[in-house]
């Protein structure tokens, strides 16, 4: 059975943080909803990476958390597809700048 040590924990968390950071940057620079969807999926990938060390401590809880993450991601995909379809019907494009509800302005 493979063991998880300090070195692998460091690599896993560093990679997870790097992917999360790249996901955030992609989401911030996204101009349309498809790119936003891609960025969110990338962030879920980072969540999966950060869950691996938990398997060494509480394997069943980690597995349950992983399944919840998969379902949440699928739900997020469902909601975003609905948003894309509605936006496309309403304004004939999927650009983020045409979304008038929610969000902060810097």
């Amino acid at each position, binding site marked *: 059975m493979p063991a998880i040590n300090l070195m692998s924990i*460091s690599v896993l968390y560093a990679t997870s943080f790097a992917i999360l950071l790249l996901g955030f940057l992609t989401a911030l620079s996204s101009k349309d909803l498809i*790119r936003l969807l891609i960025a969110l999926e990338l962030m879920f990938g980072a969540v999966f990476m950060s869950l691996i060390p938990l398997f060494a401590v509480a394997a069943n809880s980690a597995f349950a958390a992983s*399944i919840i993450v998969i379902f949440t991601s699928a739900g997020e995909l469902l909601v975003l597809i609905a948003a894309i379809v509605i936006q496309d019907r309403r304004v004939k494009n999927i650009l983020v700048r045409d979304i008038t509800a929610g969000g902060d302005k810097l």
Partner: protein
Amino acid sequence: MLGALAGVLVLSALGVLLSKDNFYSALFMTLTLVMVATVYALFDLQPLFVLIVFVFVGVIGIVTVALAATYRAMPERQFAWIWCILVLITAVILGFSIFTHTLHGISSPIGFTLQGFLKPGSEYQLLFLFLTSLVILLFLSVIKIYRGEES
């Protein structure tokens, strides 16, 4: 091996950010997710590998690639540099807390088995109930949004 996989992971995630075409970004994202699943396989977590590859990559990844191919366009770059400061502050705080925390001497085996998870009285029943409720709520929300839009 883990270091090499981590390197490929970060590079493919960087490809998502740097690629201007959504279609290639979606392909890079799928590659990243396959690599994440490979890391699970490296730690002998086969059930998770199958779940991630078949559900996460096989369904979500492919739907995203198909969507990106349908709405294929060259987006303009939009980037607010002020967010970089916030991200940098968070990275410094996280890095500092990780390096000051004593993690030395940790070396525990991963002993996960699917049979152990599915046995009666485990978290499986609660998880099944929770996920069923989540799916029903999600579908109801989407139907409500869609009906509201049509009317």
